[in-house]
């Protein structure tokens, strides 16, 4: 039963965990993308 979502607590724990990871990834990727976008600007 490990890893299975049964309760609302399980659901929130699982989805929030993944959401925070996505947000951290986005915060790292945003400046990289911005640098890619503007690196050839004068």
């Amino acid at each position, binding site marked *: 039963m490990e890893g299975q*979502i049964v309760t609302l607590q399980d*659901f929130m724990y*699982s*989805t929030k965990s*993944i*959401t925070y990871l*996505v*947000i951290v990834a*986005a915060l790292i*990727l*945003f400046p990289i*993308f*911005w640098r*890619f*976008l*503007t*690196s*050839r600007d004068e």
Partner: protein
Amino acid sequence: MSDTKTATGGTLLTPFNMVAGLILLVGSVITVLRFTGGLGAVSNLSDYNPWGLWIGFDLLVGVALAAGGFVTSAACYIFGLKRYHSAVRPAILTAFLGYALVVFALHYDVGRPWRLPYPFIVQPGTTSLLFEVGACVALYLTVLFIEYTPAALEWLGLKRARSIVVKLTLLLTIFGVVLSTLHQSSLGALYLIAPSKLHPLWYSGYLPVYFFISAIIAGLSMVIFEGSLAHKHFHDKMDETHLAEADGVTLGFGKAAAFVLFGYFVIKVIGLAVDNNWHYLTTGWGVWYLFEIVGFVLLPCYLYAIGARDKNVKLIRRTSGLAVLGIVLNRLNISLIAFNYHLPSSERYVPHWMEIGITLFVVTIGVLVYRFIVTHMPILYEHPDFKEDH
């Protein structure tokens, strides 16, 4: 054949005019059928599908693609990016025509045009999202009309009236941004009422945010797209300033669109994570969803970024067409394709050909009015009498 000649000696019987004339003729006949025979005479709308192509395309797509007005005027007058000034008038005109046609097309759906002011005077309904959308669209259409009038007043030579309206520019721009933020998001919020009807991949508590952010993308892309069409067909109407600033507008808006598309992609992924919808991605609907996200969000994001980085104006202009198509697909997915997804195919909504005819009719009216205004009024050039005012 003198009656088929224009004042400048050109013929009226061009392929474009003939096709436009045919669409207007057929559209007029369907209009009579609609207002004499009711919705059933010309549409496949039903109790299952009370909102069809006229809401999905004419309203949702129309409002999103008209977002260029508030995006461009905010960039120029609020953020002080004066190098985009030449793009403001074409963007305001496109937005004004877009909203005017949204209201015009709404009459086909709602019927009884004399009842259009009812939400304001008969049943206030201030807790209704539709009231909020109606109020904002009515107010913003008025704001856009006033923002557009300097061009018409210059054309008419009414200097005093023009100088009064021009003084209101900043106030109108702020109004425009506030009203657009409200109703662009509220259009998405309308679908929050149907969690069991809209497929989970498109349904999200973040729908208002998605609609607003994608409207900014639509606005930026539409300014580039419309600019490229204007360059092709109205090049002779453009003055030196407009021609000189055109590439800068395309590159700047392309860069902004790439960044906003990237942000839009991130919040779409966050939506998937919050609702734990990952498992739907392996279904048929998931493939269709990924087609929209990869083909019309990530791909234009990448192409815009490459175009802005390499200063490739042509690539950005082509990408704007892809991004505009993406907005059309997104709004149709939410309002028609992924809506009522659980119904058997016999109950699914497919637009009647006369509904498509009315949509073409509305778009054609927009193109013809745009062409008339651009060829007669100072939209793509500065009026010689007011050059020092710009």
